[in-house]
């Protein structure tokens, strides 16, 4: 059987659809130049710096116990903080969408405070709050639990910076979620809890997963709010971004670049995976 190609000879698609509006060239040209000068070329410099080294030395840097400990701590603290944020982010989104109460608009605005508050301010405030003599920290002293200058402090700072990501991803999905589905479940005899677990939660799951990923990715790179509360002891409470800064201060630019590239690749690929996953989940849900 001969293979017959049925495609018509196609004219090459034009670079852009024709428009009567002027200014496409200058606008795109300026956009690309600016983006290249500020973001792309400097990031390229980072990758080239790391690529100058041979594999063995890159491996030696990344498997150094201090570096490994920093990565372990950063990922673990970020994952815990993001998980806490998913749970409470859902509660807060639920409260804001489903309930009407006095001051709802204020509570809604407060959720954005971590976006607006400079990280250094959050850092000093949380660390004085969670220190042994701080308002919250002293409550844990009788139990022998240190929050500030210990790993729990890092988690607290990362919860602070990550919270809005989860609330702002879940909230609009819950807002658009059609209550008819819940009503149908109720008429079929499901109680509120079963309806929530079987109907509402699956619909919110992609948004919660996205919120988790966004909060997690942000937490991996977070610096300002963490370094004040962490205590920064090498191998114990030293996060990856701080390790990069320490390497830079020692003028070990190569070491810093290798660690930076590793952490950048991890957080970018995480976001890409989540993007793909979310598209698939979204489609699945649409089909029912």
């Amino acid at each position, binding site marked *: 059987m001969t293979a017959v190609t049925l495609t018509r000879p196609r004219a090459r698609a034009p670079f852009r659809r024709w428009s009567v509006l002027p200014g496409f060239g200058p606008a795109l040209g300026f956009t690309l130049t600016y983006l290249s000068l500020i973001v792309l070329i400097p990031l390229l410099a980072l990758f080239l710096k790391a690529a100058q080294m041979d594999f063995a030395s890159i491996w030696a840097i990344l498997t150094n116990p201090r570096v490994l400990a920093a990565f372990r701590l950063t990922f673990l603290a970020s994952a815990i903080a993001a998980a806490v944020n998913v749970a409470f982010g859902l509660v807060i989104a639920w409260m804001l969408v489903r309930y009407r109460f006095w001051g709802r608009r204020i509570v809604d605005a407060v959720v954005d405070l971590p976006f607006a508050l400079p990280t250094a301010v959050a850092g000093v405030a949380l660390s004085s709050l969670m220190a042994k003599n701080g308002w919250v920290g002293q409550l844990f002293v009788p139990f022998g639990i240190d929050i500030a200058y210990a790993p729990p402090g890092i988690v607290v700072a990362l919860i602070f910076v990550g919270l809005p990501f989860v609330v702002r991803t879940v909230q609009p999905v819950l807002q658009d979620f059609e209550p008819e589905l819940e009503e149908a479940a*109720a008429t079929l005899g499901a109680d509120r809890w079963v309806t929530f677990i079987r109907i509402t939660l699956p619909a919110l799951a992609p948004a919660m997963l996205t919120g988790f990923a966004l909060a997690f990715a942000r937490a991996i790179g977070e610096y300002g709010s963490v370094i004040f509360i962490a205590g920064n002891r090498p191998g114990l409470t030293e996060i990856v*971004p701080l390790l990069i800064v320490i390497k830079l201060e020692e003028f070990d630019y190569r070491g810093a670049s290798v660690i930076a590239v590793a952490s950048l690749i991890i957080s970018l690929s995480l976001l890409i995976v989540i993007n793909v996953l979310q598209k698939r989940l979204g489609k699945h849900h649409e089909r029912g």
Partner: protein
Amino acid sequence: MSEVRLDRPALRDPRWARAAIFIGGIGFLLLFVVLPVATVAVEALNKGIGAYFKSLQDPDTQSAIRMTLTVAAIAVPLNLVFGVAAAWAFGKFDFRGKTLLLSLIDLPFSVSPVIAGMVFLLVFGLQGWFGPWLREHHIKIVFALPGLVMATIFVTLPFVARELIPLMQEQGSEEEEAARMLGAGGFRIFWSITLPNIKWALLYGVLLCNARAMGEFGAVSVVSGHIRGLTNTLPLQVDILYNEYNMVAAFAVASLLAGLALITLVAKSFLEWRYADQLALTRR
């Protein structure tokens, strides 16, 4: 967005669940968000209002205020022009590779602030690409104002663009095309048609961009070199004072930044409430 009708019996949560959600949600926000901000005010006024104002008059703090205002005054307008240009190209035209380029604009949000600062060390620092040449010509970029500005532009680059692009895509370009048919030139179209349509979204983006520009710590910290009274911005001054255990001064400076954050939030909420229809629906 239509409001969910909440009086439906099937949507009513049991009383204990409502109570638990309220206590959990409000409690969590109080503990993790409100209390830290309250701490700033309490610690700043710990030794009285006199000590508060005195610590703000310290010459290094004054120069940090000037530095922060200078950096924001350069970085924010540049990102505004970038945002408008990008929104014009992406919002009004269709071309190949648009989706990829759009994700590149958001890239700075996914990069750690520390990395955002260090890339400029690698380009302009002494060991960097242009380091030796800059040194020969006595041009200082890192550990000086230009480095601070560039790092700030990097981290705040997406703010204006990501507000305007979805809005201008939603609005389409019929009005602009009509103006063009009637003989208006490019700038005329922009001033009389496009700008009035996007002005609140533009303000919204500038507001967020400015808040981040004035509050950025990690990126600026890496390129500043921490030269007191010369290359310190307000967040860096908080860091220095805090490490000197000068708590009242550290929190006094922090309270300026917290005040800025609160003003930004109020203005942002006002815009969202008053001009919701003129902000992008697909935002965030």
